[in-house]
Structures are given as C-alpha cells and as structure tokens.
C-alpha cells in the first residue's frame, strides 16, 4: 500500500472535515438560538415558546436559505463552466422578483407557495436568457461572464423596479431585494424545507453535475444526457432561488462564496463535496445573521448587508489568488 501525506485514506479524508463543519454548525446554531433582543431566560416570554416560535424558525431559515443558495450556485457554475457566477449573476434572482411582481399584480391573493412556483418558472426563463447570452461570451476570460450577468440582471432588476414603482409595490420589492431574517417566525418560513428535499435530489445527481462541469463535448462523450441533465439541474436551481427570494429575500454572494471556498479546500468532486457546500452556505448565512444581530445590538442589520461586505472581500480574494500550478 502506498500512502502520501495528502491522503490519509478516504474515510479519514472525509471524517475530519465533516467533524470540523459539524462542530462549526452546532456552535453557530447554539449561538443563534441564544442571541436576540428578548432574553431566553427570565424574560416575560416562556423559553420554550420563544425558541419554537422565533429562534428555531429563524435559525432553520438561515441554514436552509444558505445551503440552498450555495447548492444553487454550484449548479449554475457547473452548467456554464464558470466559477464566478451565482443565481444573482445569471438573472435568476432578478427574474424571480420580476415574476413575483407580475404575479402580485395579476393575482394578489395567490398563496405564497404558488407564487414561489410561478416565480421559479420566471427564474428558469430568465436563466435560459442568460444561457443564450453566455453562449456568445468567450470562455477564455472567466471574468466576462459575471459582468454580462451583472448587466443582464441589472436590466431585469430595472424592469422589476419600474413595474413595482408604477403599481406602488416598492415596499414589497424592497423586502425581496434585501434578504433578512428578523421577520421569520413560525408559519412564515416552512416553504424553505422544500430546499432540503431539492438539495437531496441534486445530491443524487452529484456525478452528473460534476460531468456538466466538464463541458458539453466531454460530458456527452462520457455518456451524459447533457441537455436533459442541465435543464433539470437549472429548473431545481431556479426553484431554490425563488423559494429563498419569496421567503427571506435575495442574499447575494452566498452562491459564489460557499462553492468556491469548498472547491478550493476540497476540489470539484460533488459526490464528496456537495454536502460540504450546503453546510458551508448554511453556516455562512447563519453567521452573517448572528453578526447582524450583534453589531448594533439590540437593533438588527440585515444578513444580506452583512454578507455582502464579507462576500465582497472573499470574492476579491478569489479573484486575486490563483492556485499554484506547474507549467510545462
């Protein structure tokens, strides 16, 4: 048997990082359950009631939204073979918002579940538009595609703002554009559990998603039904992005930062790493939410704002640090 310092064996190789991530998630969850403007112990409200109605839903929502966006980011990165995109840089989130505004105008009384489903259709259509643009963008410069996505998303976003302005729905749009968890209580976040199911579905496709990232020619020559796999993965991605937008609002950078950090750490084999990406995204968003609760205690800063600052810093680091490579 040959052994190298880089690979202490497949089990240990998975176990140590898994324990590390699990410990971080437990610590964050405990902190999130304990921290808030109302005291858990000795306050007017019962401890159990406060946990069940507010703290637990809020914690679960942050974990689920973060995990979902991280997995969604991975999907879209594999689908266009570019690590620097995520649902808010592919027009996905913006078309979901545009769809939501349109649905609110046409059928204001529709249930939130149906709204999310229809927003997902809009998001998928918007992503399809991005893919058509992406085909014309040369792959040699990976920075071009996110810039195209930014402009495309900006146009969709402007359309949403114009619609909302005319229909006096700016307040609603504002809530979707800035993700935060202070309003999350029991009965207002349960849709997000669908993300857990969708993430599991994507995990069953993990090998196929890795193959997608090899590009159409290589993936197809390895036997992947490329078109069908890509459509399914992007449909699931659009649904996740819409569910997060409709329940907590947009959380930019999550789908960019979590997959890239895990990819740098553990590589691109999604069979092994998709759970880490989900856990990483959930943990990062929960950390951002906790930080937002603490920075101006007892007032709150939206998690999206906190994450944008943190995410932008990591994004710049990702752009500037290129992994070592031997030439020849």
């Amino acid at each position, binding site marked *: 048997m*040959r052994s*190298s310092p*880089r*690979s202490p064996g497949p089990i240990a190789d998975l176990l140590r990082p898994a324990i590390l991530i699990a410990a971080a998630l437990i610590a964050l969850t405990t902190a999130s359950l304990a921290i808030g403007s109302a005291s858990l112990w000795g306050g007017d409200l019962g401890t159990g009631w406060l946990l069940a109605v507010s703290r637990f839903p809020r914690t679960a929502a942050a974990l689920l939204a973060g995990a979902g966006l991280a997995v969604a980011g991975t999907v879209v990165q594999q689908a266009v*073979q*570019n690590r620097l995109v995520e649902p808010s840089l592919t027009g996905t989130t913006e078309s979901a918002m545009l769809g939501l505004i349109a649905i609110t105008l046409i059928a204001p009384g529709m249930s939130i579940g149906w709204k999310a489903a229809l927003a997902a259709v809009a998001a998928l259509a918007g992503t399809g538009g991005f893919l058509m643009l992406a085909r014309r963008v040369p*792959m*040699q410069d990976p920075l071009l595609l996110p810039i195209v996505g930014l402009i495309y998303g900006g146009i969709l976003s402007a359309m949403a703002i114009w619609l909302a302005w005319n229909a006096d729905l700016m307040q609603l749009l504002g809530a979707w554009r800035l993700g935060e968890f202070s309003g999350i209580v029991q009965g207002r976040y349960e849709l997000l559990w669908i993300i857990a199911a969708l993430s599991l579905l994507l995990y*069953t496709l*993990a*090998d*196929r998603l*890795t*193959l997608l*990232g*090899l*590009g159409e*020619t*290589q993936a*197809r*020559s*390895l*036997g*992947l*039904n*490329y078109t069908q796999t890509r459509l399914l993965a992007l449909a699931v991605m659009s649904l996740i992005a819409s569910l997060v937008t409709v329940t907590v609002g947009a959380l930019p950078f999550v789908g960019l930062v979590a997959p890239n950090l895990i*990819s*740098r750490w553990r*590589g*691109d*084999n999604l069979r092994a790493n998709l759970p880490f990406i989900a856990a990483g995204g959930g943990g990062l968003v929960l950390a951002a939410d906790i930080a937002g609760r603490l920075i101006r205690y007892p007032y709150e800063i939206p998690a999206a704002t906190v994450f944008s600052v943190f995410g932008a810093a990591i994004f710049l680091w990702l752009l500037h640090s290129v*992994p*070592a*490579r*031997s*030439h*020849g």
Partner: protein
Amino acid sequence: MIKVEGLSKNAGAVEILKDLTLSIPPGGITALIGPNGAGKSSLLHCIAGLDRPTSGMVRIDGTDPFSCPDRERARHLAFLQQSQPVVPRLTVRDMVAFGRWPHHGGRPRPEDAEATEQALRAFELEDLSERPLEVLSGGQRQRALVAMTYAQATPWLLLDEPLNALDPRHAHDLMRRLNDLSHAADERSVVVVLHDINAAARWADRIIAMKDGRIAAEGLVAEVLTGEVLRDLYDTPFDVLVHGGRPLVVTV
C-alpha cells in the same frame, strides 16, 4: 468497423465536410492528417455522435451513434476533445474514474475501481493519482485524460490532436502506449487526429488524409505518405526519406 456514407456537414453557409464516404477497419491506429481547416475534427465529432451531420450516415459496428442512448454509446466509443477549456478541480484518480461512469451510472462496483487502477498503472499515473489536475503540467494532464478514455474500456478510442500539449518525449510515450493497446489482446481501435506527420508515419497502421472537407488519400502509411500526395495535401513540397523501415517526412 466504422462506416461513413455520404457525410456532409455545413456550418452556416460553409461546407465543412463534403459528401464523405469511408470505412475504418477495427484494430490498430488510424491517423487523420491534413492541413488546418480540412475537417478532421468535424469528421471525428460526427463519428463520435457528438455533432449531427447535415446529411449522410455513420455506423459504429452497425450502430447509429445518433439514435443510440448516450451511456450505451459511451460504452462503445470513447472520445477525447482537442483541449479542455476549463480544467476541473478533480484529482487524477477521480478524473480517470469518470471514465467508468457510462458503465456504472453513479453506482461504482469493485470492477470499476479495478479498471480505474489499471488505467492509472497503464499510463504510469500512480504517483500523480492524488494530485489535482490543475497543478499538473499540460503533458501530465493530457496523459490523465487519455487514461480516462482508456478506463472507459471501449472498443473504439477517438482522440482529437492528443499530442498538442506534449513535448517530443511525452508525445512518443503516448503514441507508444496507444500502439501497445491497439495491438493488445483486448484489441482497441484507435482513431487519432495528428498534425505531426512523422508521428503518423512512425505509429499509424492506416492514414486518412483530408483536405477541404474531402478525403485526399487513404490507405497504408507507405501509400499515403508520398511526396506527391503530401505536396497536394499541404501545398508545400516534401521529401520522403526512409528511417527504420518507416517513411520520414521533411519539408523541402
């Protein structure tokens, strides 16, 4: 046997392949040579079932690669594209193991792991197996990708300019390995696009020379690699010498 009949391929108004008819018998190495833009890559893509021709017919051992399910086709024919636009962050072992995907579809069996290890050994990649592809040199990465197509264990192996990133030693090693496996007991048939005419002269069993989307010449090495054929093919004069019983081609 690969059979191609009346194959044409247009890209917009440009005719890339013009009514090609050819057959490639199994076994050995068949080299596709010709000037840039001759249609070699396009022909290989059409044969591999990846690019639908405008008209005409392709059969791989009697099967139409375009009506065959993707995984079934990938168990019969492996294809390596000219260059990987984006290098995935996979270890060499993980990449080679993906060659087994058409066989197990996500549920690897012990024989898949064994085939992966055998491919790593066959291409002397054991020491690199835990290294990520992106830190390897171009030549090492190319070897890993060829090993992946080898692990696919297909009767047909189609390689589009595999010598591109390789220095003379690694190019020689790769062609020697392809030669070994194409003449081994579990006969793999190799079809390879080459720009290096002397690599074709040294290693190929048959050569198909293409120009302007048509076949300019085909046959055994000695039949195709003549001064006259090469001059017409590349519009440049060549001298054909003999070295070690094989043609050696030099530009005049």
